[in-house]
């Protein structure tokens, strides 16, 4: 079959008006169905004609999937809430600003106006071999093209690679993990809730999926508990171009400092591995220590323990080390005369 791109193949389109209808459609069509949220990731696959679902279930008409609600001092954010709505929400800004910063660093203004929080955490890997239609492990084949001697892999994983070396590209995911968020998932059988760091699956568990979502499942909301409201936050994303680009690496931390000591901390990075990584070893190492440059340096070193660079991504080790350091002890800002 010759290849042609940039024309979407035909599919059946459903636009359910509520969650119940959506999950019953997803149940009925099983693995033939494709869930369309903002569509920014989906349309790439569809226009490349690589993924060819029979049925597309467009969530855009489901009002109950959209909006930010305050719940017990925390928030419940509908999965179809756009990134722009998350960024601009006053409570997100005031109490959970790393989420605002993370969401704002994603993609471009128009993409954030349409792309959703649910879509951002559920998006597929961006490895250029995989997305180019190469038949790799993740695409059901039996090779990782990004891990061969001639592979160009500057954007790939330095940690936890298991056959596939692609990374998770989400910018909101590390912020949600740092905030101890939970993902609410519905299917026809009912609702289940998983912790943000458990929402993502790596190749060791399932090499063809990025999240725990199975056919028939729908991510409906993201809950952020009051636990870290108003904590000290740090978010930073390093990318090639300052708009549109996926992260070379990003970091998010939430921290409670008492008397100069780190009392509580959660820290996560993304684009270092196939899943966003919560850095529990770093959290354990710095908890109770003075919040200063030395602790930051130490945390950074702990973070990259075990990192294994590929041919072109060795820079990610100092990058992760330095970002984790900054997420703990801040940036030493320049003071130009």
């Amino acid at each position, binding site marked *: 079959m*010759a*290849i042609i791109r940039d024309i979407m193949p035909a599919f059946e389109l459903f636009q359910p008006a509520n969650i119940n209808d959506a999950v019953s459609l997803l149940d009925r069509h099983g693995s033939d169905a494709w869930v369309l949220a903002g569509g920014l990731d989906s349309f790439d696959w569809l226009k490349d004609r690589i993924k060819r679902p029979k049925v597309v279930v467009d969530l855009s008409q489901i009002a109950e999937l959209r909006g930010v609600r305050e719940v017990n001092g925390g928030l419940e954010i509908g999965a179809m809430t756009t990134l722009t709505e998350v960024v601009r929400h006053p409570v997100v800004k005031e109490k959970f600003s790393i989420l605002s910063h993370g969401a704002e660093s994603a993609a471009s203004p128009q993409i954030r106006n349409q792309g959703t929080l649910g879509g951002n955490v559920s998006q597929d890997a961006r490895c250029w071999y995989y997305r180019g239609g190469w038949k790799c492990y993740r695409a059901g084949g039996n090779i990782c093209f990004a891990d061969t001697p001639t592979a160009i892999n500057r954007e790939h994983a330095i940690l936890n690679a298991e056959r596939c070396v692609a990374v998770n590209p989400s910018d909101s995911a590390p912020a949600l993990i740092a905030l101890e968020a939970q993902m609410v998932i519905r299917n026809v059988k009912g609702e289940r809730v998983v912790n943000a760091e458990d929402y993502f699956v790596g190749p060791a568990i399932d090499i063809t999926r990025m999240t725990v979502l199975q056919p028939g499942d729908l991510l409906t909301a993201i809950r952020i508990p009051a636990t870290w409201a108003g904590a000290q936050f740090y978010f930073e994303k390093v990318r090639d171009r300052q*708009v549109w680009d996926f992260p070379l690496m990003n970091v998010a931390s939430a921290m409670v400092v008492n008397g100069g000591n780190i009392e509580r901390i959660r820290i996560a990075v993304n684009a270092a591995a196939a899943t966003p990584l919560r850095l529990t070893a770093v959290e354990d190492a710095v908890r109770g220590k003075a919040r200063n440059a030395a602790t930051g340096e130490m945390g950074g070193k702990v973070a990259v323990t075990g990192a294994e660079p590929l041919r072109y991504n060795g820079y990610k080790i100092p990058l992760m080390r330095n970002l984790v350091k900054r997420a703990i002890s801040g940036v030493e800002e320049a003071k130009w005369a």
Partner: protein
Amino acid sequence: MPAKISPNQPAYRLLGKNYETPDLVAKVTGKAKYAEDYRAEGMLFARLLLSPMPHARVRSIDASAALAMPGVKAILTVDDLPAPADAMTDLGQVIPANKLAERGLTNEPVYQGDPILAVCAVDEYTCAEAIEKIRIDYERLPHVVDPLVTLRPGSPNARVEGNVWLRPVAAPPKPGQPPPPPSAPQVQELKWTDADFAASKDGQLPMGKATDKWEYGDWEAGLKNADLVLDETFVSPNTSHQCLETRTAMAYWQNGKVYLHCSTQSTSQTVPAVARWLHMDASDVIVISEYTGGGFGSKITSSIQCIIPAVLSKKVGAPVMMRISREEEHFIGKARPSIHGRMKVGFTKDGRITAVDMFVLCESGPYDPQGDANQAGRQLSLMYQPPAMRWQGISVLTNTPPRVSQSQPGGFQGIVLMEPILSKAARKLGIDHVAIHRINAPEGKASLGPAAGGKRPYVTSAFIKEALDIGKASFHWDERKARAKRSGTKARGIGVATSCFVGGSVGFDGLFVIKPDGKVYVQSGIGNLGTESVSDCHRVTAEVLGIPWEKVEVTWGHTGRNLPWTCPSGGSQTIHAMTRAAFVAAHDAKDKLQQIAAKDLGGRAEDYEVGGERVYRKGGGGSMSLAQAAKRAIELGGIYDGHEIPKGVNKFTAASAQNLTGQGLLAIARDTMPRDGLTHSYVAGFAEVEVDLETGRYDILDYLAVADVGTVIHPRALGGQILGRSMLGIGHAVGQKWVYDQHYGLPLAKRFHHNKPPTIMEAPTKMAWEAVGLPDPETPIGARGIGEPPVGAGCMAILNALSDALGDDVFRRAPVLADTILASLEAGRPMEEGLTAHI
């Protein structure tokens, strides 16, 4: 932002002033039509099937299932296309066709993405379904995507015929005869030896046999006697032009003529190109291109693929639109060739260059040979005025998308190779960076390149030293230099770079009519690609005739509307070439007005002057309005209203003029004015950057470009060109590149987020431009083109500033991204693979 023209520039009524261009309202309201915006009744659609392999031979095509689909109208392969045709020069000499050149479709795809066939159907959805039903049996052929790899012994060749371009040297002209046309280039196999590769070390470019060379002066003595000799390798990137408008085309036929809506930089010049591709008479080709969404050298005469909808349209008897997708544009939209360069440069202790020994390896892609390697040497020899120089070049084929000129072709690469060396020499010798540029800068009728006919060619003028002086003051160079370079986790640096390129050509035609309504109807064959020269050049017409701009109507963009022979809009020729053409045509009108006045009002023609929309007797007396003179021109006929066309003009212009006969006073002339030297323009760029030492990221805090472009015609358009092309260069510094997996020979980066053209967020926080304003002495209006030189200055001012912030040996190729900086800072030495292509 801040912009300034130096008071050097003489005052004009219109020139040097801003005005509203005639195309602007259509642009802001969305009414401006680009090729894909046209519709025709019964229009069909075409899409391309691209090669999935980097190099193969098509054994057979089974399109039966596709052709059987409802709505599928036709399939076109290379067998349906005309063979490559010879070209004819203005002097009537035949340039034989390059038999290995791109034809639009092919049975021997030579890169992944090379179009094999086109499917025509009632809509694109059907085209896509049909393409998926086509079965092609390919025979895989060896491939190579790295120009150095193909030079290794025993390595693959990109073409069956070989891996390097050679152009056999033509016999010298016989006395009294014009020089012979260039001979057809040939592909041959050339491999370097293991010893050639072993001789270079530490990322230095091996230097095996070159295919071309030239030299002047005693470069060996120059290097031997130098106080400092630097031997450096640098690699410039392949960069796709990525015009925002892809090269979509729509065609239909009417009464034996083909009407082609395409995207082209040059309206008039596209006609003979299309005629040659289609083996048709130029008078049967109508090109419509009122608005072109960017070109940058990749659409000088559109693209050969535009003949596909034309041929299909004839085949199916209906209009055909072939929309080119962004991914297809990545392949057929062409790119600037990369250059691997190695240079030995000698300096005296006070910074003057003593000699340059330059070796360049140009990656030419799979089709036409590129002139970038040679032009890199020529422009370098102009910009830095080495008293002695040797240039050696080799143009290598790879199985990657076709290359073509891109803004400052070759000149850019020459600047990119030289600037890091100049910058390093300044640091080693303890000389100010502006000073070392000034010491080596050209002035006056400076020489460039090797001798031709016993004498080195030279330029018309150069005021780059003035540009450096202006920039040094405006940028507060010395103050910035005195500041601290490190604070916290940040480092700052400042950089300067100079750059030059061809800025004009001669010999084209001007054509307009003064009608009895008193207005001037200018015919413009210039492409409307955003430079605004399509109307800017004709400001000269109004200036010379002394009429208000509001009385000038410009017709452009449709060769059925009687346009004159016009220079290609490329290589920054236009503002120079076409202000000259406008100038001679305006003077032709002036002469005719004076003659008509003398006939009617008595006296001699030279007793009359033209101004204030009238022709009047000097010192008082009779006068007549332009409207009256236009009426009289029609009555007089002959030369006055175009019944007689002067012999000197191009036949293309003559044919257009004949259609305008009898409408008023017809002004028509060819630019035969003398010019002593080759016209070039210059830019000095100044930049400050701030680097985050913990992430490798950097921001450009400030950028100033000072341009030596002669007389400024339209300040805002000029500013757009200067800063726009500066950004194009900055893109080469901060991100643009290709990525290939060498084993498979396939591209990984085909999308904007992979190839990384700069966004508004990459633009310097502050940008400004200034113009020296000194008129070029060899052209009547004094204007030169500016599209090219800002590119090299933009790129290298940034990279020199980075070196200032970080020291030498952090990077040795462009672009420089955070990963390169961070890895090198971490290791204390360059960590990037210096020579591997497309990483």
